[in-house]
């Protein structure tokens, strides 16, 4: 099977003859004897059989359309307009690669330039790369970059960081031996500024998130930035970009580097991937020189017309090799283009409305949850709401699941000090009937 993808299967003999060979084997004569072998793999199947089989397998997944879900904690059910999906499936985008030949890749180059430009407007910083793998790796690369820029060796993060991001950061920090220091939250569920001041000394960078892992808006972003800057550290802000229609651009709040998740625009959840990490920085040569990732720039062609091209490549691995600012090569270009198309569709008004609807739906969810469980922290929540139960959350989860509702993300394992807590999330897609069904169910099982 598979010959339907391989035109010259039909031309083997003819081609071998033309180049004076008697057999395919002679093309593998440089492989040590005995190394070529028959693999123990199944026979190929027809497209129809594989379609049937995988459709059935995938139907075993309960989707959010089958079972209303309140999971968030870094992955959210946003609606992706149909035209976004349609456009990125255009084969000229989908089946192209890194635009090494700009003259026949202006479409992808311009689309990525537009992505960079749209993100720049959102985050308030003029330098944006064409994507990292995801928020977590973008944050980890920001930590490494901070260390390179400041030549210091400590990166300060909130203790209330997602376990995903924390483990990514630790892995990336291991090689260069970067020390990761955690700052606890205060009674409002926000970063403890006093503790930060105690720890910030000799830090390469200070990281904070908006909203934070508990879904709460950190109010003291600017103060944190000032503390970081006073200590000679870079100020790195991680942001959920869907909030940036209603919340000030981190660049305006003092951020030197902004990271975040671009895939919240334009991509479905996809069981967690692909994603696309936002990476933005100030227009400062010192920072740009240390920035990871591919960057698209505007230039001219030989006739003086506007054109786009990959630029500032001397930072990258294919040129600098072991001295590169990062090893990243393939990035998440198509995910970034999807985000750009979605953002261009929303425009300023849409982005504002999106933020407001999420804010209101989250407030509704929080209010309703407060009727049936403890909400340990006040403040303004965006998407996630931390809820504490008296019973073991696993029992509650079972009860909800029996009622065809998927509850939130249990965080007791990662934050035992918070007891039987879980993050329940809302977005613009959350329906009143889902929340009401959840509350009814919790009244029975919580």
């Amino acid at each position, binding site marked *: 099977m598979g010959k339907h*993808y391989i035109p010259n299967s039909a031309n083997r003999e003819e081609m071998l003859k033309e180049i004076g060979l008697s057999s395919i084997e002679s093309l593998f004569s440089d492989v040590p004897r005995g190394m070529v072998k028959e693999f123990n793999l199944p026979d190929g199947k027809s497209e129809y059989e594989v379609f049937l089989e995988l459709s059935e397998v995938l139907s075993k997944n309960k989707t959010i359309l089958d079972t209303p879900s309140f999971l968030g904690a870094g992955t959210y059910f946003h609606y992706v307009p149909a035209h976004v999906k349609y456009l990125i499936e255009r084969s000229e985008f989908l089946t192209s690669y890194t635009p090494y030949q700009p*003259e*026949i890749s202006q479409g992808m180059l311009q689309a990525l330039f537009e992505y960079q430009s749209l993100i720049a407007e959102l985050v308030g910083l003029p330098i944006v790369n064409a994507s990292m793998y995801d928020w977590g790796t973008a944050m980890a690369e920001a930590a490494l970059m901070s260390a390179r820029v400041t030549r210091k060796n400590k990166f300060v993060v909130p203790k209330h960081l997602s376990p995903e991001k924390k483990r990514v950061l630790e*892995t990336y920090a291991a090689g260069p031996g970067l020390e990761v220091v955690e700052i606890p939250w205060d009674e409002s569920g926000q970063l403890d500024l006093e503790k930060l001041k105690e720890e910030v000394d000799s830090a390469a960078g200070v990281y904070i998130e908006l909203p934070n892992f508990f879904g709460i808006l950190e109010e003291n972003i600017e103060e944190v930035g000032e503390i970081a800057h006073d200590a000679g550290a870079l100020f790195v802000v991680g942001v959920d970009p869907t909030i940036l229609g209603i919340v*000030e651009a981190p660049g305006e709040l003092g951020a030197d580097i902004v990271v975040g998740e671009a895939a919240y625009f334009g991509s479905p959840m996809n069981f967690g*991937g692909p994603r696309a990490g936002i990476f933005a920085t100030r227009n400062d040569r010192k920072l740009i020189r240390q920035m990871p990732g591919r960057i698209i*720039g505007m230039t001219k062609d030989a006739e003086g017309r506007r054109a786009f091209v990959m630029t500032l490549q001397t930072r990258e691995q294919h040129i600098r090799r072991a001295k590169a600012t990062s090893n990243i090569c393939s990035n998440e*270009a198509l995910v970034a283009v999807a985000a750009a198309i979605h953002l261009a569709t929303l425009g300023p008004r*849409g982005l504002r409305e999106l933020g407001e609807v999420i804010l*209101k739906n989250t407030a509704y969810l929080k209010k309703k949850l407060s009727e049936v469980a403890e909400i340990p922290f006040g403040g303004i929540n965006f998407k996630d709401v931390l809820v504490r139960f008296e019973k073991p959350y696993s029992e509650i989860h079972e009860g909800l699941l029996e009622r065809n509702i998927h509850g939130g993300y249990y965080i007791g394992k990662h934050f035992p000090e918070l007891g039987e807590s879980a993050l329940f999330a809302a977005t613009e897609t959350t329906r009143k009937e889902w929340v009401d069904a959840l509350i009814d169910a919790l009244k029975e099982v919580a």
Partner: protein
Amino acid sequence: WGEPLIFELSREGRIGYTMPKPIEDVSVEIPEKLRRKSPLNLPELSEPEVVKHYTRLSEMNYGVDNGIYPLGSCTMKYNPKINEEIAAHPGVAYVHPYQDERTVQGALKIMWELEQWLKEITGMDRFTLQPAAGANGEFTGVMIIRAYHLDRGETQRTEMLVPDSAHGTNPASAAMAGFKVIEIPSNENGTVDLEALENAVSERTAGLMLTNPNTLGIFEDEILEIAKIVHRAGGLLYYDGANLNAVLGKVRPGDMGFDVVHLNLHKTFSTPHGGGGPGSGPVGVKDFLKDYLPVPLVGYDEERGYYLDYDVPKSIGKVKELYGNFAVIVRALTYLKIMGRDGLKEVSEIAVLNANYLTQKLKGTKGYGLPHKELRKHEVVFSAEPMKKETGVKALDVAKRLLDFGLHAPTIYFPLIVHEALMIEPTETVSKEELDAYVEALKRISEEAYSNPEVVKNAPHSTAVKRVDDVLAAKRPIITWRMYRELREKGEVDI
């Protein structure tokens, strides 16, 4: 052509979106300190305008569906459309990664099954699907090597050996993992110089990163000897899977002596490249390294079914959030199931046949040298150095002139050990006629170079834009509309 930027198409008041109403229309106040005050300069367009804009942009782009795309080391094969159809299933799109494992048995089964395929294909014992791309996989691999040595107390193993023909990601990944990179030269055959390797290994050696066939398309025929040298020194062997298409279904890295392997699902396993990503870079290891893999792994157990296994005590941690680029993983498994054992073998055989056919057809054409051995695997590297010396026409010019014939250029100036390199990887999904046309075009360019070099040096002529000025782009970076706007206001830009 000359599509304006989306910002330039904006008209005040245009709307492209619909938004569901909030559940309850209460007012929620953002704290004053956080409220957005800076302007939000996003474009305003209707949906038809957005669609037309990106449709036009797409038409200004060349993909695999447009024609041959023989970028060396990139394996630009045809991406079957069934992959896209399966990946668009609601059971992919609308599934949250933190769902109870009982509600994602389908997703976990797909990951588990893909792992089984990859194990057999590579001769490895366990795989992680977490890495998002090849380089992310390399990083994973070298971190595993690092963890292994540290775990054994061999803290002195700080050197990673990398041949001079390696992909740039190899040294970069090793460096990110904290290794010192030691470059190993190639010999006159284009393969690893064994003597240099012998001299390089020591008790400081953590491992050797190797691609086989290498970036010249040449099979490292002394691979067993190489493995012996590295292993004897206490180092591990890392396989860069970028070139697996050459040996797919025929030879296994595990049988060559490799301990760690990364694969590129977007190369060998036919998932689309998306203009630069998403890719997927699974990493496989031999049994003795499986405790170092990133978390979670996917397990299976009769009672529990498929599950996410976080119980990997010596794990290097995570190299990316969550479980990898699942939508890419689905595509790769779809492909594998259709191809099966024989199909995969057919892939490498015809990929190698195509590359050698092209090699033999082009060989001897004036201006193109063929350094190193003639027998190649999936790709071949010609050198335009003779042409440059004799006519001034460089590899870059040849590449640009190819565009005029509606053909994508090869990878150029890589590997670094070949001057004026033209690195051509046709893949198995192009036809003989396409290969013949490619050879014809390269021959014609050779004729032009010797008769009328200016036409080549000023190429391309028939593309939407003419040769793009990358020097200007680097000298005066304009990275975003925001920068452009500022520069334009200052009168410092005229584009």
